[in-house]
């Protein structure tokens, strides 16, 4: 088993051990009896079989005993699970966004980060939002997982019990780079957490366009160095002439302000030759005109 670092780990691991324990007794017992019978009643040793039609007593026994045992297993499963759905009052709230193929987090003060930082021993409620398809927010060390479903407000909560840095993985298949959709949660003692919270991320030097590209996971698919990922690279894009496919026909188009804005709002209208349609979702409702202008302004700098 992996690191355990939340208050849920104990309940989950306990029900796991109980089910595994009961199962092992039966698995080993039944297998041993089976193998013993095969040797003991081999036709060489036992040339004449005895026909036994059945036994009502045994049928009752091996119905009743498994019934009792599954009730026990169900009970521990339920007890380990129950606290996961009751968020304590006053839990700190963070919003987690999932999108192809990146997690991002929004703190109550509006700060956006690409990894999660939480205080030790404080309940944290995570509101789960998907911006496109299904994702699943999975922290193995916390024994916690819940799907991010577009159009639906799911949540999870946890209370970290150990400081350290733990993986966050996407557990629901979400397309090409599903296995690269990773992040982490760092658990800090409360004093360090307060310090982290106080030191505002230094965005002064960063171009606002670049911040937007990072926040919206654009750079997962569009590189800044000319390499081809899922979509065309941003390097040298502005002012370049691209061959695109529009309604099934190829045409040439100049990558100007209008073209870039349209590609953000209707990504499938003009698809650059050699790339697949349907890989990008529309950001028309995510980015406003001013933000798109910031992005275009930044793209101009990527020569």
């Amino acid at each position, binding site marked *: 088993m992996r690191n355990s670092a939340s208050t849920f780990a104990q309940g989950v691991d306990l029900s796991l051990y109980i089910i595994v324990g009961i199962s092992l007794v039966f*698995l080993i017992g039944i297998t041993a009896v089976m193998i013993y019978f095969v040797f003991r009643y081999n036709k060489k040793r036992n040339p004449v079989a005895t026909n036994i039609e059945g036994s009502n007593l045994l049928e009752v026994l091996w119905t009743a005993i498994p019934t009792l045992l599954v009730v026990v297993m169900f009970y521990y499963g339920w007890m380990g699970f129950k606290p996961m759905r009751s968020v304590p009052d006053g839990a700190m709230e963070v919003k987690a966004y999932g999108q192809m193929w990146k997690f991002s987090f929004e703190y109550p003060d509006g700060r956006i980060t690409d990894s999660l930082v939480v205080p030790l021993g404080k309940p944290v409620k995570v509101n789960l939002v998907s911006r496109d398809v299904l994702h699943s927010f999975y922290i193995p060390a916390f024994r916690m997982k819940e799907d991010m479903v577009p159009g639906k407000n799911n949540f999870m909560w946890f209370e970290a019990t150990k400081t350290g840095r733990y993986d966050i993985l996407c557990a629901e298949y979400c397309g090409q780079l599903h296995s690269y959709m990773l992040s982490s949660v760092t658990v800090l003692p409360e004093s360090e957490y307060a310090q982290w919270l106080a030191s505002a991320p230094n965005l002064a030097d960063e171009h606002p366009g670049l911040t937007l590209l990072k926040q919206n996971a654009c750079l997962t698919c569009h590189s800044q160095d000319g390499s081809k990922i899922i979509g065309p690279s941003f390097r040298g894009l502005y002012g370049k002439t691209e061959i695109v496919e529009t309604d099934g026909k190829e045409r040439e188009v100049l990558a100007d302000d209008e073209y870039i804005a349209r590609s953000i709002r209707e990504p499938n209208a003009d698809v650059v030759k050699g790339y697949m349609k349907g890989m990008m979702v529309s950001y028309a409702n995510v980015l406003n005109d001013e933000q798109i202008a910031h992005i275009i302004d930044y793209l101009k700098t990527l020569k």
Partner: protein
Amino acid sequence: MATATAQVNYLEAKKGIMSWLFSVDHKRIGLMYLYALITFFLVGVTLGLLMRYELLNPGKDLVEAKTYNQIFTLHGVIMIFLFIIPSIPAVFGNFFLPIMLGTDDVSFPRLNLLSWWVYIIGAIMALSTLVFGDGPADTGWTFYAPYSVKTGTNVTMSVLAAFVLGFSSILTGLNFIVTIHRLRAPGMSFTKMPLFAWALYATSWIQLLATPIIGITLLMIVAERTLGVGLFDPSIGGDPILYQHLFWIYSHPAVYIMALPAFGVISELLPTFSHRTIFGYKAIAYSSLAIAFVGYFIWGHHMFTSGMSGTARFIFSMLTFLVAIPTAIKVFNWVATLYKGSIDVQTPLLYALAFIFQFMIGGFTGLILGALATDIHLHDTYFVVGHFHYVMFGGTGFAFFGALHYWYPKIWGRMYNKLVANIAFVIFFIGFNTLYFPMFISGLMGMPRRYYDYLPEFHIPNIISTVGSWILALGLILMIVNLIVGRFRGRKVTERDPWGGITLEWQTPTPPPVQNFDRLPELPKNGPYDYEHKPQIKD
């Protein structure tokens, strides 16, 4: 009854490919299913081996991420819809159900041929995505919305293929239900029917009642993709959770379409090779019906992390545990059937014993996934992949190959090399467990499924799995070569009952004549496994 025409065996009755492709003989249709199924199974195995090779090391080993995603989707679609769902009913059900009931064919022989053709058309549609359109779907075999609505790959053709294949399944189910009700030999009441027929009966009802739901759900995906109706994609007003409910309302009962016929096979193999009556006939028969019934109400356990209410999770978890009980009853009765038997350890029995062992592991890990606390951690991880491969492959797959070795001499009138068959079994068994057991470990460590690449900490279980896949492939090749060689060069079998079995197929000539029986079948006095009153059939 013993006329000259009845004596011609079904293999030699007519010659030429057309006499097979348009045959309405249930035996020939069963064999045509077998050849098609094995072909698709081997395609699926090849895709599985490619996946395992890709996962040997973190990072790229063989293919790009998109190709990998298409490979695991096609692997799932082929193995589920083209192999495991039809497998035992379509091949051995078709061939042996009428004979075991003491009749000459299924109720609707032409409908039976139509089912085969519909199956082939569906299979061609599924494989056509390799060549036409924008490549095979990359959604996983579950086609979860809204990704399946948005992706540019050929999802439409893949789901249409599954839609068409559904009809084949429905028609076969209908045919078997009517056959079991109407064509049992005089004197064979329901409680004197072989357990294989009982299992097929329970399965057929699920095929008939549940398959239409997946059909309409998949058409809704097509409507969503082509017309943008707004059923499942929230960006146009749909609900992705609705899709999951509809999908699993079929696909969970479908798990029992895959598993129940295997239970039926095991219930035949154990009495035959123990040479004694089955222990707890009624318990085994009725538990099939119980599983089929309860299986309808537990689909929600596939969605424990989808944001369902706590109440829904509570109910679905509880009902899930309920299914464990009739399944446990079966296992106990099977093992008790070995007690005081006179056990003849032949290849089919080895497959049956491996089935019980592996199916128990599949079942126990199912309990871990049915419990809420543990499922939250393990859902959508490799633990689930390990679990369903233990049930579907270690269970149904092993029962399928056990059945193939069991009925082989009756079907072809020849015997495979038994020593080679046993060696192949041992390699296959070791390979299987080496391949799938480490998946429980990587799942517990937190490795999500459908992963093209993984963190370094998951490396060791993945190496072991991949090595296991090579061992498994070796065993499989040896098994199939042995069976093919046996078909042409194996010892000729002319006796009616090479294993000392008691059900009616062992009373017919080997291979059976076109009309199945050359004389009136004789039922044992007290039920189908009454070895004390076994009818003595002489040539």
